[in-house]
């Protein structure tokens, strides 16, 4: 179990992560979603012990994670910028991983290099944005760390490379189950991979739930404005659109089938809310979710 207790990250007067409490059962793929500046990377940095929290603590299997040799060995955090020197060749980067990472699979790393069409003699500084991301993905997957964190690691990858990456991620996860935390903005594209989703906003955890539970969570109700308004009474409204006398409301929560049937009889139409739409509604509100109740 990974536990974050009262974790706060401050940069001067800016609070990037605000008193976060979170429990993450191990052995699952997590999607960490949040807008730019929501605190995702700061939270992941604390989780990987790249940064000491300003307050609070991170526990993994009951042990404090910061500067814990055993837990550091079991954690791999791949950032979008890569923590490598531009003058190093890929072969050198792999050699360091082989020397220091107990779970490093050199054969698999070579296979991924072939898959992404990278050459071991290439220098990191000479790689394109997408190729650097492919290298990061390779380091993250071939490291086989029990806690693997990939922070926007698809950046710059083309559609083919991203598809290959998702496929490899899933295949390798199934073959070598571990905890993977994936931070991304391409929500719909990656949503199928997530077993659980964490949504951050303004340094706080807005939501943490199983992906399947979230998929059916939101509903869009469309119809005559007065009927829609009446139907929405008592529900949490995430967003609204109006065009003439037609109104569309996005409601939070799972609706009762009888309630939907009654609405349809009244001439209302209902549509599911995708994960990305839910995310947009939850994080684009000027007020906290509770305030819209």
């Amino acid at each position, binding site marked *: 179990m990974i536990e974050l207790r009262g974790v706060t990250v401050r940069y001067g007067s800016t609070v990037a992560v605000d008193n976060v409490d979170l429990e993450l059962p191990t052995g699952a793929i997590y999607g960490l979603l949040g807008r730019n500046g929501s605190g995702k990377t700061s939270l992941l940095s604390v989780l990987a012990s790249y940064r000491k929290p300003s307050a609070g603590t991170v526990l993994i299997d009951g042990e404090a994670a*910061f500067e814990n*040799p055993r837990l*550091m*060995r079991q954690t791999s955090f791949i950032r979008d910028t890569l923590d490598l*020197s531009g003058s190093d060749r890929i072969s050198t980067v792999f050699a360091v*991983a082989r*020397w*220091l*990472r107990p779970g490093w699979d050199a054969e698999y790393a070579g296979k991924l290099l072939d898959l992404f069409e990278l050459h071991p003699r290439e220098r990191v500084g000479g790689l394109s944005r997408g190729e650097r991301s492919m290298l990061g993905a390779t380091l993250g997957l071939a490291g086989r760390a029990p806690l693997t964190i990939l922070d926007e690691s698809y950046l710059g990858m083309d559609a083919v490379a991203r598809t290959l990456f998702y496929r490899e991620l899933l295949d390798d996860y199934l073959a070598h189950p571990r905890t993977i935390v994936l931070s991304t903005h391409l929500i719909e594209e990656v949503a199928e991979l997530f077993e659980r989703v964490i949504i951050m906003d303004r340094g706080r955890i807005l939501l943490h739930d199983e992906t399947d539970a979230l998929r059916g969570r939101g509903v869009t109700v469309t119809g005559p404005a007065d009927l829609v308004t009446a139907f929405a009474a008592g529900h949490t409204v995430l967003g609204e659109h109006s065009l003439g006398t037609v109104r569309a409301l996005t409601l939070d929560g799972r609706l009762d089938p009888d309630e939907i049937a009654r609405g349809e009889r009244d001439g209302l139409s209902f549509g599911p809310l995708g994960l990305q739409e839910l995310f947009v509604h939850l994080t684009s509100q000027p007020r906290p979710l509770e305030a819209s109740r």
Partner: protein
Amino acid sequence: MSVSAVLFQLYRPVIYWGLAIVVTLEIAAVAAILTVNPLGFSFWLVVVGSAAKYWPLVTGILMISTYFRLIVTNGVTRHEFLRGFAVFALGIVVLFPALVVIGHGVESTVLGLLDQRGDTYPVFRFGEAANEYLHVLPATAAYLASGMVISAGFYRFRPLIGLLLIIPGSLPIMASSGLITIDEFGVLTQRAPLAVALTIVLAATATAGIAAHRLMRDVAIRRTG
């Protein structure tokens, strides 16, 4: 593999290339000088004597600015890195001055056999080897520690603060340069009794090492790009 072994593996090409360059330079330059005059100074002490200061300085800087992040992001704690670096640094501090003294001995012997020592050439004497070694070692240790702590200041703080920390960070260099030196003519200078001078320089070096440890022991691993 231990951190010190990884550092050695990563630094091995630099060591081999550096050695190859200075040996080639020594042979070529000394041969060129001998076509005109016998050698009146030790070219080895000029080149490798300087390298025994500036190469450790650069190593100290690189260890923090480049290798620290590379190693820690491969699952090593800051403390483990600093401990491994201390072992690696100890190797440099012990071996580099030995290279200076041994090279001087070889140069002196070869020139003697060729009868090409000038009047002012510092003839190597086995009885003086330990004294020569002890006049090189403090500078090697001091420059390395200064490079490390100055780099740690820049790594941890804003550039302006890092800039200000250059002054206290240079104290080991100032102590070694002011108290105990060797020049290209083999003149050993000490402005205090050897034991006192050594103690002061090594104390300043140890203080810089402790300061670097304090700066780096919980520092955030910075992003690049």
